[in-house]
């Protein structure tokens, strides 16, 4: 089975391309890229006239909740949400129940993913057993069984010596350690950003310096060990500056920023909606501006969603008692195109770079490029499609979103995974195709 995508504008920064190109996918791989490719009798043709054709989006930070928390999400609903949003490769974190902290769990999940997932799913193992922050997980065994990185996401590894060991150990297998950088003693009992808005609402604040100080420690340990540190969901001006300076010194550090931290401020919390509660918290505009500058100058390598679905009953509580996080896979591209591209702040190549090419590159994933021989993972984007975020249209089980009712311009209209059309005009296509 062959698939020919014809007549589109190919935007693929991995080949420095932004031009009219056709793409032929054969046996799940890119077989040809050319100005005019022709279809034979058994080639399915997709008309991409007027659309952007790009390497499928790559999200380095999601939560699929399976195993153990399927009331929030599972592999099927989570990967449906992914392809609905234009993502072809996603990287779920290890904080499931049980924790992904041994090779047998990595293998078991991979087996289930191979049967059920609609998108490609690359696994992250935990840094410490059971996320306990005390003993290292068997990272070598997990790496051999397919884990692409290690993270205790949701928790900061407080023991600095142990975290240094983790960096040293993981670097033997050329895998990054992802750090969830927040000093828990400084964050205290806070549950929103500390600033003028928390002063007004009376909600205990999490100071930005709680993140800065943790990022500083982790960067210094990366420098000390020479290992690859990846900083998750950077949300503060201070952290951006620490990472910027570290990169200048040649420290092997990469970093990501979440869609919501790039596009929302703590003012969103004013109505006490639990759909605005997230860790790290939504911050003030000076931090949002600093993140955008960091994205622009290369300090931040990737835009991620931190898709963190929760069940209705978990979010339907008082703000204080709600768990952190909300869904993001189905809103990310529309929000980013609306807020960063259509405003003229970022070019399309930059956005595809940060949402596909660079994240794939820094985690050494076979994704983020439509060069011949790469997986046939493609997203077709209608840059000017106007649409409104409505949670009842989501495929994810966790409907809470801070973007409910937001008017967006630009949307993925087709998602192709390994040559299979997995989403067309917003509808997810289930089942084997070829």
């Amino acid at each position, binding site marked *: 089975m062959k698939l020919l995508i014809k007549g589109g504008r190919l935007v693929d920064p991995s080949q420095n391309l932004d031009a009219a190109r056709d793409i032929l996918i054969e046996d799940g791989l890119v077989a040809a890229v050319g100005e005019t490719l022709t279809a034979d009798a058994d080639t399915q043709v997709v008309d991409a006239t007027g659309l952007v054709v790009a390497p499928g989006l790559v999200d380095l930070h999601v939560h699929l909740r399976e195993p153990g928390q399927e009331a929030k999400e599972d592999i099927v609903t989570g990967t449906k949400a992914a392809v609905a949003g234009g993502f072809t490769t996603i990287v779920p974190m290890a904080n499931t129940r049980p924790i992904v902290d041994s090779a047998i769990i990595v293998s078991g999940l991979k087996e289930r993913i191979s049967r059920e997932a609609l998108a490609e799913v690359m696994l992250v193992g935990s840094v410490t057993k059971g996320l306990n922050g005390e003993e290292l997980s068997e990272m070598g065994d997990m790496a051999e069984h397919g884990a692409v990185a290690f993270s205790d996401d949701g928790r900061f590894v407080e023991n600095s010596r142990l975290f240094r060991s983790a960096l040293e150990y993981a670097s033997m297998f050329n895998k990054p350690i992802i750090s969830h950088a927040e000093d828990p003693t400084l964050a205290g009992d806070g549950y929103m950003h*500390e*600033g*003028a808005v*928390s*002063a*007004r*609402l*009376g*909600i*205990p*604040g999490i*100071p930005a310096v709680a993140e800065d100080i943790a990022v500083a420690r982790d960067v210094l340990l990366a420098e000390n060990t020479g290992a690859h540190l990846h900083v998750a969901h950077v949300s503060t001006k201070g952290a951006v500056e620490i990472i910027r300076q570290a990169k200048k010194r040649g420290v092997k550090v990469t970093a990501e920023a979440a869609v919501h931290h790039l596009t929302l401020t703590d003012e969103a919390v004013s*109505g*006490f909606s639990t759909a605005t509660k997230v860790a790290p918290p939504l911050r003030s505009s000076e931090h949002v501006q600093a993140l955008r500058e960091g994205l622009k100058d290369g300090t931040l390598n990737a835009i991620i969603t931190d898709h963190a679905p929760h069940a209705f*009953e978990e979010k*339907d*509580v*008082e*703000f*204080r*008692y709600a768990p952190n996080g909300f869904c993001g896979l189905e809103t990310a591209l529309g929000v980013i195109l609306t807020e960063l591209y259509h405003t003229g702040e970022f070019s399309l190549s930059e956005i595809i770079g940060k949402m596909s090419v660079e994240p794939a590159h820094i985690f050494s994933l076979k994704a983020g490029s439509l060069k011949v021989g790469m997986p046939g993972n493609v997203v077709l984007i209608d840059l000017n499609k106007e649409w409104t975020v409505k949670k009842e249209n989501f495929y994810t089980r966790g409907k809470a979103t801070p973007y409910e009712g937001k008017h967006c311009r630009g949307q993925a209209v087709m998602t192709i995974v390994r040559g299979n059309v997995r989403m067309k005009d917003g509808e997810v296509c289930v089942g084997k195709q070829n």
Partner: protein
Amino acid sequence: MAKAAVSLRQRDILDLASMEPSEYELILKTAEEMKKLINRDIKKAPTLRGKAIVNLFFEASTRTRTSFELAGKYLGADVINISTSTSSVTKGESLRDTLLTVEAMGVDAIVMRHPAEGAAHYASQIVKPVIINAGDGAHAHPTQGLLDLFTIKQYKGRFEGLKVAIVGDVLHSRVARTNISALNKLGADVHVAGPSTLMPREVEQLGVTVHHRVEEALEGADVVDVLRIQLERQKKGLFPTPREYARIFGVNAARLALAKEDVLLMHPGPMNRGLEISPDVAYGDRSAITEEVQNGVAVRMAILFLVLMGGKPLEAID
């Protein structure tokens, strides 16, 4: 002073930040009538006969709960108290389900005290009965704010240009937040004083002048509002000892002498005598602390009356 509004714009009383000075004035004017009723021999008026009010308290409270209960009863309403230690909340019931249950029993107003900020806003989105916020975490306490306004108006006759000093733990105080927003709208000059560890970061953005020497705040003040210091804050490392707090920040006679001669001294209660306030000033001739309690009942009668009679002023009902 603002002209009284004809009626309240919103059904619920959630915070003073979302209300206009003309609405405060309507409530204060109505409360003046109510205060006369409290001081009559026979206090009962039939105005709210047939109305049911539930006091839904998720936090311990004597003064506010009793004040609301008497306010409702003086006006002839049926008032039921639910406190969480004896309710289905201890069985894990969600706030939504508790509210829906209370609503289904046909109540007209729910007076809610809750430890979580925004809980009253959440409640107002769920159920039809009027929600009156009796304190939500460190966010708002609108009826306390209104009784403070009532007391200031009673003694000063105005708000415009008054120097008001709020002293103590502003960080954890819903009373401070409420009074800052209301007094700013009314044109008062609001100062806050206390240890920097008990001041919210960026508090000056709320429109106040911040002092870390209590003397500066008290200097020439027309009104001094002293906040309660909770002793557990000391264990969290926010101040060294109660002794040091009293020495440096406690409001005593020597410090109060820096204020205007006719200064009005307030405290929302309950007091820690000898900590944030010395007994001689608490019981002294500048103190309106017990007067505030009576004003609290009057203001709550006014609020219950206005929200349950469709926000119309007293004379429109008769």
